[in-house]
């Protein structure tokens, strides 16, 4: 029973984290057809920015609860700045190029950003563990669990709904959906595709940065944290169906529970859990669980 509780909680917790780091990736792919490897570097930047900002914050002796507001603000600012710099500075010159080439462009960006992060912050790890301990823990069915981790679950749900709402209900979001359906016709109808692209990329980047910001208090912020995230996020997105937001949620839940179950029931196979799910899903549904059927062009 305790084990069951643990699997349910751990799976949910990990799924929420996966969703946060993966949803920006699927959004950017869905709209712009760019499979963004630099997403991992954005995540790392988020973690570093959070560590630095909160370091200054705590050094100033400000009240602890405000830290969460600071995290929100820096995620937004850093995400928008980094997203726009990358999109305006590099990507816009390459729209319309081969999808695979764009993967390599973002890979090159990833390498550059990784070293840039190292040059700015050095190689030693940073810590901001205060927010993680701030709310203490609760006992759920005899298992102590950090309240902070439960808040990440809540955050993931809120962010997911907000994103869905923006896409489906706002004017800008619906224009974005139109661009996804057909870029050329949308442009002909007077939609400013350039602006849509810049906005989407910034939002996707903000998501990656938020992932890093909320993770920073749990980890040692060190070089290389971005690499680990990329492949996980890819797996989640591919399981759910590239470009689908509900797909990212389902993919995250699949992958999250697969990992939690293997940790508790068969820890030796933890390493394969996510790839195995990905391979099985793709073997059965080649385009992922939530992919739209695409027409065959003659």
């Amino acid at each position, binding site marked *: 029973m305790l084990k069951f509780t643990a699997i349910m909680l751990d799976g949910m917790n990990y799924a929420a984290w996966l969703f946060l780091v993966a949803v920006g990736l699927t959004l950017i792919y869905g709209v712009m057809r760019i499979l963004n490897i630099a997403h991992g570097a954005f995540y790392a930047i988020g973690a570093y920015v959070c560590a630095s900002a909160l370091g200054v914050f705590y050094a100033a002796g400000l009240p602890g609860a405000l830290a969460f507001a600071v995290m929100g603000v820096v995620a937004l600012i850093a995400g928008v700045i980094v997203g726009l710099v990358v999109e305006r500075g590099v990507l816009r010159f390459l729209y319309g190029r081969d999808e*695979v080439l764009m993967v390599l462009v973002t890979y090159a960006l990833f390498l550059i950003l990784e*070293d840039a992060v190292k040059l700015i912050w050095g190689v030693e790890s940073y810590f901001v563990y205060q927010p993680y301990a701030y709310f203490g823990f609760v006992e759920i069915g005899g298992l102590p669990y950090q309240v902070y981790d439960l808040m990440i679950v809540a955050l993931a749900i809120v962010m997911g709904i907000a994103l869905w709402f923006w896409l489906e209900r706002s004017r800008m979001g619906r224009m974005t959906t139109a661009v996804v359906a057909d870029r050329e016709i949308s442009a002909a109808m007077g939609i400013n595709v350039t602006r849509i692209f810049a906005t989407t990329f910034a939002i996707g980047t903000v998501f990656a940065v938020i992932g890093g910001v909320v993770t920073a208090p749990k980890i040692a912020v060190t070089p290389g944290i971005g690499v680990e995230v990329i492949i996980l996020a890819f797996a989640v997105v591919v399981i759910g169906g590239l470009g689908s937001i509900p797909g990212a949620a389902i993919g995250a839940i699949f992958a999250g529970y697969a990992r939690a179950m293997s940790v508790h029931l068969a820890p030796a196979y933890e390493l394969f859990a996510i790839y195995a799910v990905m391979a099985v899903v793709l073997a059965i549904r080649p385009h992922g669980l939530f992919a739209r059927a695409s027409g065959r062009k003659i």
Partner: protein
Amino acid sequence: MMKTDFRREPLYIAILAVLLIVGFFLPSWLRFLLQTALAGGLVALGVALQMRAGLVNFGQGLYYALGGYAVGMLAAQAGITDIFILLIAAVLVSTVAGIVLGLLLSRYREIFYAMLSLAVSMILYGLLVKAAWLGSTDGFNIPPVSYLGWTPDRAVRPDIYYVTTAVLTVIACLATARYLTSGAGMLCEAVAENEIRLEYLGASPRKVAFIVIVVASALSGLGGGLLAMSTGHVDPLMTNWTTSGGFVFVALLAGRGSTIAPVIGFFLLELVRTYALDLAPNAWQMILGLVMLAVILLLPEGLWSLIERRRKA
């Protein structure tokens, strides 16, 4: 997509052969770099072949690792050190893997092919990491190889290894050129252009894709085997996605204009990498990234377009 014409292929391969002969007289560290780059170049060639059919393999490292581990396990564990047996085994193992996976993967296209091949290669990575008897992430070492019973002396061993690698690379390029001018090879571009029309014409796109996957796996297995012989060490990083990403990068940027383009392209990449490391040990990844971006922005058709352009001019 670039129009490709493979009638000039023998000439290019002859140029490669001449370059490799010149390469023999390079300083030993640089020649070693060239030697290992040739092994990797064969894998990049395999990736480039698949790209002609619109298939981007982000997990080609799988066959590279299989070739390397086949050589390694036979030499280190079974005590077979004859290079010819070892390399045949490497090609055989990876080709069989290519056939099995090809049956599954030839149904997939575009990013899904890329992702599924990546997933499979990462599963192999996981298996190798779990395999404590194969040294897990540390990998294991491979004893010096022999040639029909003759084990070269330490003094001439590097020369013999280089010559073996160079000769086999040229042979592999020739064989690939032969495949490209065959029916199955020529139809690759048609698969990328328009599968349905190809089907209406009575050809099977799946079969074409299957064959190119198998050919690429054989080439990559040879590359892996040669690398294992050269460095005397194999580890699971060979099948990590970062390694495969390097092959894709070279295949894409070297251009698909000739079989020798990826082979030379891989050497250039390694050269940039090693000089970046020497120049800026703390920021070499950044230099590598900047070079990649520069090539993508300035040479949209790949490095080979420099040669094509000159020819047209």
